[in-house]
């Protein structure tokens, strides 16, 4: 009997993108309403900036100007070049380690008993508190930042993989056995393909957590990359630039997740691909 491990994936994540129970992809939504939604958001921001609600609240227009300014002078590109290194490295390492550990725990009882409770704790607990600790051990360089990303990304990937492997479709396992599948064939041809949608959802959550981790690391450990850009412009009271930077990282994370979603549907979900 499997212990029920609940992760955020079952409830939240990108519900409408994921289709949810309504099973509609993001592309089917009326484009006009989406555009309207963006326009309204920009308009409210613009108005709030013009009132202004705070001296530190630039208008939407100023923020966009600042964004293109940062793009033009290359500071944004430079910042992302440095931010993306620990992010990509940390997420890739977490993906391999997490899927490996999760699969192992799903197939091997002792591993499950030893590791899963720890990851349940790490998943529910505010592991961000570890980030200052990481700095002590690994200093302020790339290693510390990569570790910060991994601390946040790994638990959700492990737990999703474990859950998917544990809850694999029983009747397919029996089918594979009846057609003389070996243990190895069962894992490679039934368990992993059947688990891959949930594993992939875990990877998406892991990527989202990785973004949180890298931003935290850059704000807490040493200001580099995006964190530096945010801190620097805040200290100079260039609020438009600061907002533009923050907006850009949120946009990048959203685009990455949407892209992963698209890849997932293309690669793993023939049944969701539509006619």
């Amino acid at each position, binding site marked *: 009997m499997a*212990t029920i491990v609940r992760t955020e994936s079952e*409830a939240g994540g990108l519900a409408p993108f994921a289709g949810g129970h*309504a099973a509609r992809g993001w592309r089917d939504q009326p484009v006009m309403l989406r555009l309207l*939604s963006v326009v309204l958001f920009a308009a409210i921001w613009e108005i709030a900036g013009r009132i202004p609600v705070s001296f530190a609240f630039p208008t939407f227009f100023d923020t966009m100007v600042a964004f293109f300014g940062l793009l033009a002078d290359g500071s944004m590109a430079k910042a992302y070049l440095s931010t993306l290194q620990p992010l990509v490295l940390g997420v890739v390492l977490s993906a391999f380690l997490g899927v490996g550990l999760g699969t192992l725990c799903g197939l091997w009882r002792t591993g499950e008993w030893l590791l899963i409770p720890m990851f349940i704790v790490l998943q529910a607990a*505010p592991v961000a508190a570890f980030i200052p600790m990481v700095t002590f051990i690994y200093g302020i360089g790339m290693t510390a930042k990569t570790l910060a990303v991994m601390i946040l990304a790994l638990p959700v990937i492990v737990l999703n993989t474990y859950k998917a492997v544990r809850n694999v479709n029983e009747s397919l396992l029996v089918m594979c056995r009846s057609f003389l599948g070996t243990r190895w064939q069962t894992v490679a041809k039934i368990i992993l393909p059947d688990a891959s949608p949930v594993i992939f959802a875990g990877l998406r959550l892991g990527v989202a957590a990785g*973004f949180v981790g890298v931003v935290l690391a850059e*704000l807490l450990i040493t200001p580099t990359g995006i964190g530096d850009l945010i801190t620097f412009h805040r200290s100079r009271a260039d609020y438009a630039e600061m907002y533009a930077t923050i907006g850009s990282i*949120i946009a990048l994370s959203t685009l990455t*997740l949407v892209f992963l979603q698209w890849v997932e549907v293309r690669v793993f979900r023939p049944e969701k691909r539509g006619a």
Partner: protein
Amino acid sequence: MTMLGHRVPMMASLLVWCVVWEIVGRLDLIFLLPPFSAVLAAAVDLVQTASWQSATITTLRAFFFGMALAIVAGIPLGILMGRSKIADDLLGMWVNIFSSAPLSAIVPVLMILFGFGEKTIVAAVFLFAIWIIVLDTRAGVRHISPSLIEMALSYGASRTALYTKIILWAALPEILAGIRLGLIRGVKGVVIGQLLVAIVGYGALFETFSRNFLMAEFWALTIILFGFALVVAELIERAEAKVEYYAGARQ
């Protein structure tokens, strides 16, 4: 969901890890990792200090304010999105973006908008927790069988009665699930907020401990935080278990 029945023996492995920690700590391999027993002793001392008590009160106050705001705002918003297609189309995209965005990047904005104090922490908790509550409430409302609503209308339920007597209750299992996930995110919000602000509550304590290399205290505080997060999640899970029976029966 016989969580408790199975969880207890499984969680026993955490004791194994505590023993491993104790051994590694005693071997003095990493100065950052004092023995587990020393951390426990530090925790006992820590909870008696005035600075911990006042930090805890500050932290809890910010947490509960932020959560209360997130719940009070999130549930109606979720119900609105569940019931109205236009609201869903207009807001859905943003709720989804924010529910998975790196909100830690927004904390610096909160700091300049709300100052380096408790208000920023409340705002951080609110921002971290609300989106998942909205999403789950929306999903719960969407799940309600149309015949249940038609039943209420055919028996002459008023609009208020429809919402307070049918929709809210029928969506309760998902709403509670959303609140549980929201609480977990809220705890992360309070910690991230305080770490970044660094002069309020636990953030200030973490800062002091790490600057003075008080490792046992640092770990003690971390464990207290983890314990708090797990207790909160467990409590809400029990409340969920009480409504779970009709999550299935509803369909």
